[in-house]
């Protein structure tokens, strides 16, 4: 399981990489493996403001349609339109080319509710052993 140290993680399997008062959001390597081949990604509009845990995007794989939640509150300042034509990027490069949105954070203390790479790894391992 790939887990970059410079990201924070949510229990709903999103990552956020913070730079200044902004952050880039995507779904984790674990999430893409669970989903299987991704065939469609539906992204929000620029300017949309989300509360933490609100549905931010939808991902459709050969198995299911899943919701992606905003790991923190924020305003969408950019979306990755490449995912429209190349949804396979989500499987190939979940932490890089397959970023979903860039957001401007509303309250940086939201980040305190997220997990570090180590914490997230433990969380996933526990989930798998009970699941």
């Amino acid at each position, binding site marked *: 399981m790939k887990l970059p140290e410079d990201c924070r993680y949510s229990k709903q399997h999103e990552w956020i990489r913070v730079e200044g008062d902004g952050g880039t959001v995507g779904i984790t390597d674990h999430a893409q493996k669970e989903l299987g*081949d991704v*065939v*469609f990604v539906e992204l929000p509009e620029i300017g949309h403001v989300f509360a933490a845990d609100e549905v931010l995007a939808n991902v459709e794989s050969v*198995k*299911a349609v899943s919701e992606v939640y905003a790991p923190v509150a924020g305003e969408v300042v950019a979306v990755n339109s490449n995912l429209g034509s190349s949804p396979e990027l989500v499987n190939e490069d979940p932490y890089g080319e397959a970023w979903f949105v860039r957001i401007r954070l509303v309250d940086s203390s939201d980040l305190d509710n997220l997990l570090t790479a180590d914490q997230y790894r433990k969380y996933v391992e526990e989930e798998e052993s009970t*699941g």
Partner: protein
Amino acid sequence: MKFTRTGRHLNLNEGLIFERSSPGRTGYDLPRLDVPAVDLGAALGADNLREPIPGFPEVSEVDVVRHFTRLASWNYSIDAGMYPLGSCTMKYNPRLNERVAGMKGLAESHPLSPESLVQGSLEVLRLLADCLAEISGMDAVSLQPPAGASGELTGILMIRACLSSRGNPRRIVLIPDSAHGTNPASAVIAGYEVQSLKSDSRGCIDLNGLERAMNDEVAALMLTNPNTLGIFEQDIVSIARIVHDRGGLVYMDGANLNALMGITRPGSFGVDVLHINLHKTFSTPHGGGGPGAGPVAVKQVLEPFLPVPTVERREDRSYFLNWDRPDSIGKVKAFYGNFLTLVRALAYILANGAEGLREASQVAILNANYIKHHLRDVYDLPYDEPILHEVVFSSRRQTRNNLTVMDLAKRLMDYGFHPPTVAFPLIVQGALMIEPSETESRQELDQFIHAMRCIAEEADTDPDLLKQAPHSTRVSRLDEVQAARRPVLRWKPDEADEQDS
């Protein structure tokens, strides 16, 4: 006992009908024109003439018949073999249903006929509604919704109407994490927010979790009973009480009603509204071949809100369509639903009778438990609880060799069976959800069990065989990912030429 591999699908190659076309070939022969020809544009108006359709196939009658007969031979249906698609109840559709639906008086009954001329058809509708009310223990039924999901939406709209009439439609619908995907979709379309309830270690609703989630913003709990793991929610009476005590209503997805007929009734365990999939439990045609029917049954509290019209009886015993229902949510389908599908369901109910329906449920439960018993040593059972009409295994033991549950499903086609539902319910990793229904004999079940055991062994000894499966079907493994990512939805002659060259 001798086990035979039945998986040799008919293998008649067939191209597109466009490719059969030959200039000038027709399927008809008109007599020579014996009146003067007229200019069509002048006679009909130029706007009513169309240009010839480019590439329209020119074929004879036998070309057409062979084309579709060959295509039909690629199909797999319950008439060809076992179809253990969990939660779909793919039971055999008795030919008697077709005979009854083909009766002239029913088949040619017109929806705009005056009531006095279609008393028989109205009686069919009323009788079916009464039978479904009796089987489900509910007070009233609308036969209009043309599918299960349509029944769900109708039910939730009635809940909204009922709560609105009390002053507050409320905001949230609670749905267990093992639910069918249509449940949250229906709730959202009816304007509700969905809140997911985590299942407990038995795969059932967690009473404490429900207590915590239930408040006066919750309009309804939507649950399936038995649930999608085939497990009966034993706390259902307490569950309903928790919801009712805080002013909510209980919606039941009737997808799994095939486990309950004549044994227990949703109306007896606290359900306020449920839909019934006639194409599952009551043996009407299923899926694309439909059309379907998803009647909704309600308790008295929701009766004023049923769709219009309802079929009712006057004092002189004649039937009529009652449109005068001021609190109704309105119409949900043209006319009165898919009439001839409803006729088939009634034929099935009357042919079986009360005892026959109970026996159907009992045998469906027995069959699922027989499969569970004979496969549990090779496939994992993540929720090992007593089951009713379906069993959900996890393929995690078989998929250690870099295999997926899909590889197992594809391999089953080589053994001549339709795969079970896979990867659902979502709370089971690599789920294999098997519902044999009462249709299958012990011999057929033994064949299926044998196939599943062979596949479990192959997963260990020859995983590549599964990775490449199916091998005996007309076409090998289809690229489902590419088909979803870059679907080609139309045949175009110029592009076909390009591909050829």
